[in-house]
């Protein structure tokens, strides 16, 4: 019973929170409760994700409203940071220090002694697969290593809540996969994680619980599949530039199993509206591979992005 009570308490609760910087509104009357578990904060650049992150990590004070993290106000409440680990977006370090020195020095601020801090730092670096480079200066790290050492300092003190601001930014595909796996593992181990990104499929691979934000307002929250369904109801435009667009278009029309709803021609290209974008992309890939329909030079989706989703959601 106690576990249920613990699980039901939101890890972050914001009530009518607004934040403005002079004339610019960063967050506009946001009221949200983030449940325990892994939550993705999704929004385009400039949506207010970082502002929200900074508010819930106590770096900024709300201009209006109240924010509580783990049931307590966060502003000027340093003791709450025992339970919070924050991985910021910016690529900033003490470049002259080695990864181990840096993580160790930071965890000492949590009250650990020298030996305990060293052990904790090593454990954290091992968790992010960075032990081999632990004694290298951070200035010599690659972009992916820098992201990982940032995450190491966030989890070194074994916090209950991890807040990760764009943790996959600048990483190569292998690094992304590893980090996503780590985040899922931490979630399974019982940590609560709030992770922000502007890329839908990245968030999708980490969690099914998301918070959509745009223009400083929460647009939607909840299960990602519900939001996906909304996307699927809205037809996708796909732009196909080909050597012989009419030949390609004929093929689409002759085999309409991918729910081709409409079609129009542009110079050297055909733009198709489809209700099943994933299947349609796969088909175009097969067509390009066979070469029977001439060369297909470009396949893009002008609205396969969050902006289009948001535009649809705000319509």
């Amino acid at each position, binding site marked *: 019973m106690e576990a249920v009570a613990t699980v039901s308490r939101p890890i972050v609760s914001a009530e009518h929170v607004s934040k403005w910087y002079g004339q610019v509104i960063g967050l506009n009357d946001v009221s949200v409760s983030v449940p325990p578990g892994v939550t993705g904060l999704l929004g385009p650049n400039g949506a207010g994700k970082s502002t929200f992150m900074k508010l819930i990590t106590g770096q900024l004070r709300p201009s209006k409203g109240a924010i509580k993290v783990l049931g307590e106000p966060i502003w000027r409440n*340093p*003791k709450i940071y*025992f339970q*919070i680990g924050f991985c910021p977006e910016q690529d900033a370090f003490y470049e*002259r220090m080695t990864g181990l020195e840096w993580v160790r*020095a930071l965890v000492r*601020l*949590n009250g650990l002694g020298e030996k305990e801090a060293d*052990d904790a730092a090593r454990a954290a670096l091992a968790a992010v697969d960075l032990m081999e480079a632990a004694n290298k200066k951070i200035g010599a790290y690659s972009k992916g290593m820098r992201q990982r050492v940032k995450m190491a300092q966030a989890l070194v003190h*074994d916090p209950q809540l991890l807040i990760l601001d764009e943790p996959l930014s600048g990483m190569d595909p292998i690094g992304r996969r590893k980090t996503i796996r780590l985040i899922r593992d931490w979630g399974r181990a019982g940590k609560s994680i709030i992770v922000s990104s502007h890329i839908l499929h990245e968030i999708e691979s980490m969690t099914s619980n998301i918070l959509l934000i745009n223009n400083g307002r929460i647009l939607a929250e909840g299960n990602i599949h519900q939001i996906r369904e909304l996307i699927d109801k809205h037809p996708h435009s796909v732009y196909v530039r080909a050597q012989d667009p009419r030949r390609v278009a004929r093929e689409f029309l002759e085999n309409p199993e991918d729910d081709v709803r409409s079609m129009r021609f542009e110079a050297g290209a055909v733009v198709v509206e489809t209700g099943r974008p994933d299947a349609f992309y796969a088909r175009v890939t097969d067509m390009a591979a066979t070469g029977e329909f001439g060369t297909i030079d470009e396949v893009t989706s002008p609205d396969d992005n969050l902006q289009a989703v948001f535009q649809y959601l705000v319509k």
Partner: protein
Amino acid sequence: MATPSTAPGYLPSALRVFDLSVGEMLWSRRTIFMALIVGAPVLIAIVLRLLDALGAPVFQVNGMQVAGPTVFGMMIWFFYLRFTVPVLGVFYGTSLIADEVEDKTITYLFTRPVPKGAVLLGKYLAYMACTVFVVLPSVVIVYLCVVPMRGSLGGSFLDLLKDLTLLVIGLAVYGAVFAVIGARFKRPLLVGLIFIFGWEQVALAFPGYLKRFTVAYYLQALVPHAMPNDNIVSMIQSFFRENPSLPEALFWLFAIMLGFLWIAAVSVERKEYVLEQ
């Protein structure tokens, strides 16, 4: 692994921040620049010593020989007290938090379970360590080069100790004052310079209570040497000079240091730091 759930106290937290910061501060470009600045009087002292050894009339003013201890006193006054100490106070004091904000590393310190004021105190202690570590050896070397010329090392040793203490106190007090300026003003460097080379110079030249609102007024009470004049402003200041007693000067200097450090800590606690995107 069980991690502590109570933070170390204020001072232990500050000391941990000191551990983290002192290495970064010591090997920064700023400190290299400072080392060059305090290296100049050392170079001058060595050159003067060599010239004197070669018989050149370097220590003669208006045909009169000037003793080494007097020259040492002049160098302490002109170079260290009137320039190095306040300028280092400005350079470092105004940048205690500003450097971290500019480098965007402040986030790591402010999302740890230590009070923000302790972060400032730790950085202040690191500033003291760096400046004392660089400035005091420079003074000692100048002393060793200059004083033996028509003077005695042993005889002036007490003056050396007083000068070293004076410089440490000056660094501490100016550092605290400029820590507040750094925490509260958008352009702390300019404000700091206007304070030292504008306000302090003017206030010291006027009779009355105005000079009590300067740091230099109390520091001058600790100077064991004569304070020569090199321009009209310093001549006017010497005309209106009135020194407080030593205990009074020490009391107010420590009060200023502690008071300004407290104000700086409170300012940092309450301020929001918006990092450049």
